[in-house]
């Protein structure tokens, strides 16, 4: 079974290759054999309506949820059975849905605790992450739980960057974020992707945003991939129908 062509640079082995992934919450099956690939340095967008399994897909790829079948290969290594923190050490960075932080820790501690758990332990990683979101520099002493939703999301992405990932998994990074910060977050994703060459697996509901950012996409419906392709294909009618609410 080969993954759908979502990498622009054909021929090069993909950074992430997910094949036949199945996942369930208890007896409720959510994913029924999903294939996704993300090429090194490319941005793949996972789309679909609410409740089709997008977040479940990211959780299963990340190892937060143990898949019931299928394989997750990252950088040529089968990581399907590895715990999530081992995947982080191999270069997968995850920003879960809902601007998650350690609420009682300060912004600085949020980054610090992540650095201490990382493989490289290089303090420079915190400075690099703060360069992406300079606003956070003024908030280092504040408790994360008291930041606004947008600031929390910036912290959440910065925290993932501290691990120096080669790929970022972003779950609806602009949801519940005030409009003034949405643009900043979008610009940051573009910079990370285009300037630093970070591969991204992005879950995004909004077609416009996906059109601006994605190299490739998959559309999920009912726990299976309905369509996959390159950014150009996103413009056709069938895709719009699949995404219409």
């Amino acid at each position, binding site marked *: 079974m080969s993954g759908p062509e979502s990498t622009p640079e054909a021929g090069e082995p993909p950074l992430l290759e997910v094949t036949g992934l199945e996942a369930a919450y208890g007896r409720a099956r959510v994913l029924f054999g999903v294939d996704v690939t993300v090429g090194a340095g490319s941005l793949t967008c996972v789309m679909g309506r609410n409740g089709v399994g997008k977040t479940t897909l990211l959780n299963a790829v*990340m190892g*937060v949820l143990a898949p019931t079948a299928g394989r997750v290969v990252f950088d040529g290594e089968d990581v399907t059975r590895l*715990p*999530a*923190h081992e995947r*982080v*050490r191999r270069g997968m960075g*995850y920003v*879960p849905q809902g*601007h*998650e*932080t*350690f*609420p*009682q*820790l300060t912004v600085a*501690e*949020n980054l*610090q*605790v*992540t650095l*201490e*758990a*990382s*493989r490289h332990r290089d303090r420079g990683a915190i400075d690099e992450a703060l360069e992406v979101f300079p606003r956070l520099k003024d908030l280092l002493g504040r*408790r*994360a*739980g*008291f*930041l*606004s*939703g947008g600031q*929390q999301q910036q912290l959440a992405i910065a*925290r*993932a960057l501290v*691990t120096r990932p080669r790929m970022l998994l972003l779950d609806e990074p602009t949801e519940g974020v005030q409009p003034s910060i949405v643009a900043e977050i979008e610009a940051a994703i573009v910079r990370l992707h285009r300037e630093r060459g970070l591969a991204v697996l992005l879950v995004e509901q909004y077609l416009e945003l996906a059109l601006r950012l994605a190299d490739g996409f998959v559309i999920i419906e009912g726990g299976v991939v309905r369509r996959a392709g390159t950014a150009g294909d996103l413009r056709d009618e069938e895709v719009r129908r699949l995404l219409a609410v």
Partner: protein
Amino acid sequence: MDSLLNQVPIGLSIGAVLLLVALGLTFTFGQMGVVNMAHGEFIMAGGYTAYMLQDWAGSQAVLAALPVAFAVAGALGWVLERLAIRHFYGRPLDTLLLTWGVSLVLQQAARDLFGAPNVQVVAPGWLTGRIEVLGGALPYARLFIMALAVACVAGIWLYLSRSRPGRRMRAVMQNRQLAEVSGVATARVDQLTFFIGSGLAGVAGVALTLIGPVGPSIGTYYIVDAFLVVVAGGLGQLRGAVIAAVALGMLNSYAEFWTDASLAKVIVFAVVIGFLQVRPQGMFVLRSRALT
């Protein structure tokens, strides 16, 4: 009026005992959510550790026992977590039954090893005697327990707020899944948390030998009080546990002063239950915009 003031040091010393027995639970129950009914038996293990060390350390056994009991009870807790409890995370009722069974087994083991009657640990000479405080007499042993409680709280506070493993522990307790995807090996943090929480029960057990004998069922006397303090203080909140322990100690001492020992227990229970009706989360809660 004098006799009213007399109750203050007594209340504080009861509070210190409550705090010591509850401190470990703020880790295992408060932070990890494990209802460990065998926590009382880790207290017992601490007491028997002091008893055993008498052969070697004589009357200074209590001092020598503090670190040893921490290690012994901690190791017991670590083994329990590894072998059993970790398979039941997220299943509180099963955990309750499991650890209750372990508690019975450990009590019987103590009976087999040390015999059913209580045993006495001789307090060091410098802990016998008493001083006058606020018109009442306060035994040195009680003062020592208070100092020990203060030292333990200070130590835990420093550990949690200043050390790397402490910071990691707080991160796991505040957002387990995020910690895992930040690269923290959460299962290893759980092991350490359980070790420390159980070890603190051992320290409490040593302290209890200063105010009474050690027996196989000593844990059952204190387990309910310990849970009471943690729940009233707010889960996982060190500050809450300290305030709840002192408040319950005071309440207990005054209720006992005006009524009698068993009625005092009833009053304390009633007050805690009433309090939890008003504030089910206890005194302090983790609060943030993220949780609202």
